[in-house]
């Protein structure tokens, strides 16, 4: 591959032929401000913000579409380029309402950033501003026309990525505005949340997140979306130990810049407050809470005494580490069948512009991991049924993570030993001898194996309630003590 060498802001940089000036500048750590350009979309070069001063060119060139040439001398941050940007930014603010205090994008807004860093300190406009008000685009998307900078990233996303062109620009000049066709809107789209992410300003905002938190208050934790087996890389945004939203994290091998609306919308369960907070042991005198040490010691004793067959129910929402620890424990106490149940959607929902990505049928993040660990999927597509054999067990029964929502209250009542490890109280675990609190994936570190058999790591975003522990720690401690180690 042939390369070209050019000078940007006095620094020499060598890039492959065909690289845009914007990317070449990125190579040396210079960010050229831009709106309409997005790495995954076509570049119409219409925002005019990425104009740079190229020596010898008759006028400033848009760096997002200008290819780097050998020997070119480019200035992005002084003289003409800076003056240009200052002028363009002033144009952007002619009709911008400057409602940063009530705008959800405030704090992560590119217009705010650019104007703060190089725009004018005071406006010169005296004319009244154009007012559009706000428009419900359907789905989870609200449109504030006044804040829009007409970069058309959203229009191009719907056209090129979702390939469902339901957005367009109507009118011209200063009356131009993004709109949907009639009342159709975005309600049928499964990927519309992405236009909120790629909107560089606060024109497109999420209804779900509206006024909920300020961007600068949120902690970002790299994680993996737990809502289907695609395993989109996400950031979990939390404030005060509450998950407020999921945002896609770029990974060109898995999800590009995107994630689906289904995954984005299913995070509330991580904030559930009905949690098991302490290990409980059921003895002759009813339930007691002897603490982890006591509970694990007596569970270990009971496990040693049990001679019956071993059944285990796992969950495809558990991490590889949790599942492996369960497998290890089951092997240690004599081996047995581990089954799991997981919900399945009727069909996949692909993103046509990024063929690698789809909302997969498997609505659990780790079905592939469970499969690879030799676990067997039972029950229907709604994650119910299939546990008749397990429920009738007279030996040892271990349930990890499955809430047993469809099971009767006497589930496992014939088992000699029934241990339930879960995050949320399950009515069907009433016959359990041990109820042990474990963390959800959002409260622990671990990995999921996605549909491509890619093992992806996630980090803890929340503090676990009470004395809940990651399941792999609990199961690992049990296995180790059974093996005679400390």
């Amino acid at each position, binding site marked *: 591959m042939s390369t070209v060498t050019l000078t940007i802001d006095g620094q020499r940089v060598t890039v492959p032929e065909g690289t845009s000036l914007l990317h070449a500048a990125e190579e040396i750590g210079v960010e050229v401000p831009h709106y309409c350009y997005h790495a995954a979309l076509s570049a119409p070069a219409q925002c005019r913000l990425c104009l740079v001063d190229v020596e010898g060119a008759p006028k400033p060139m848009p760096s997002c579409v200008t290819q780097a040439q050998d020997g070119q001398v480019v200035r992005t941050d002084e003289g003409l380029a800076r003056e240009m940007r200052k002028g363009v930014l002033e144009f952007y603010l002619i009709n911008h309402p400057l409602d*940063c*205090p*009530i705008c959800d994008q*405030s704090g992560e807004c590119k217009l705010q950033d650019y104007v703060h860093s190089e725009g004018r300190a005071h406006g010169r406009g005296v004319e009244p501003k154009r007012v559009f008000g*706000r428009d419900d685009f359907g789905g989870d998307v609200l449109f504030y026309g006044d804040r829009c900078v007409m970069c058309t990233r959203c229009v191009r996303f719907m056209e090129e990525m979702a390939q469902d062109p339901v957005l367009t620009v109507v009118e011209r000049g200063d009356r131009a505005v993004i709109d949907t066709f009639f009342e159709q809107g975005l309600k049928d789209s499964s990927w519309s949340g992405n236009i909120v992410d790629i909107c560089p300003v606060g024109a497109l905002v999420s209804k779900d997140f*509206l*006024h*909920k*938190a*300020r961007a*600068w*208050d949120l902690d970002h934790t790299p994680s993996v979306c737990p809502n289907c087996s695609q395993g989109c890389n996400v950031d979990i945004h939390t404030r005060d130990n509450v998950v407020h939203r999921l945002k896609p994290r770029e990974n060109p091998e898995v999800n590009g810049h995107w994630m689906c609306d289904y995954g984005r919308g299913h995070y509330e369960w991580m904030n559930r407050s009905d949690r098991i907070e302490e290990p409980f042991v059921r003895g002759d005198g009813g339930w007691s809470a002897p603490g982890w040490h006591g509970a694990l010691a007596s569970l270990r004793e009971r496990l040693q005494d049990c001679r019956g067959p071993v059944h285990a129910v796992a969950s495809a929402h558990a991490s590889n580490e949790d599942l492996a620890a369960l497998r290890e424990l089951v092997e240690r106490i004599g081996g047995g069948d581990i089954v799991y149940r997981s919900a399945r959607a009727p069909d996949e929902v692909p993103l046509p512009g990024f063929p690698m990505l789809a909302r997969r049928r498997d609505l659990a993040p780790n079905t592939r991991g469970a499969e690879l660990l030799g676990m067997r999927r039972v029950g229907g597509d709604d994650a119910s049924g299939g546990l008749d054999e397990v429920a009738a067990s007279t030996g040892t029964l271990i349930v990890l993570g499955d809430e047993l929502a469809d099971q009767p209250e006497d589930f496992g009542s014939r088992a000699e030993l029934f241990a339930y490890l879960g995050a949320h109280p399950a009515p069907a675990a009433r016959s359990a001898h041990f109820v042990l609190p474990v963390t959800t994936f959002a409260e622990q570190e671990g990995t999921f194996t996605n549909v491509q058999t890619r093992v992806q790591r996630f980090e803890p975003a929340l503090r676990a309630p009470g004395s809940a522990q990651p399941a792999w720690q609990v199961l690992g401690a049990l296995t180790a003590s059974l093996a005679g180690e400390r």
Partner: protein
Amino acid sequence: MAISVKVIRRPEAARSSYLRAALKGMSLTFRHMVNPRKVTRSYPEEPTELHPRWRGTHRMEVHADGRPKCVACGLCPTVCPANCIRLVGGEDDQGNRYPIVYEIDEFRCIFCGMCQEVCPVEAIHVGQHFENAEYTRERFVYDLDRLMEQEHPVTALWDPSDPASE
């Protein structure tokens, strides 16, 4: 060792009398009774005059229709060095952003006035008020209604005719 006796003579009557000192003191007192430059104030019967930049307990400004002026932008809890403001934003029935919860813990507050300075809509103010006796500690966490009820004059942190102090 022999005991030695030291004889101390009584002072003269003129010097031992307290009359002189008393008269001297009283003359000062009486001079002050007629002194026009008196400094003692009969607080609390006479309210104290506060400096225009005195920063006391808070007050939330309200619109004519009774809504708080606050738009729940979150700048005051962000800037607050004492972390005494709790704010939960939401949307009211007219589609306006407003504070569902707005609480200031006046015990944690250090009365720096930065909340007033940062407020983009001039809603929250520190005020010319300092008499805050209450029976319980909880009463010092002022909620939105309480802040809106306050009637004391607000603090002028800057000169309106010269806001940048130039």
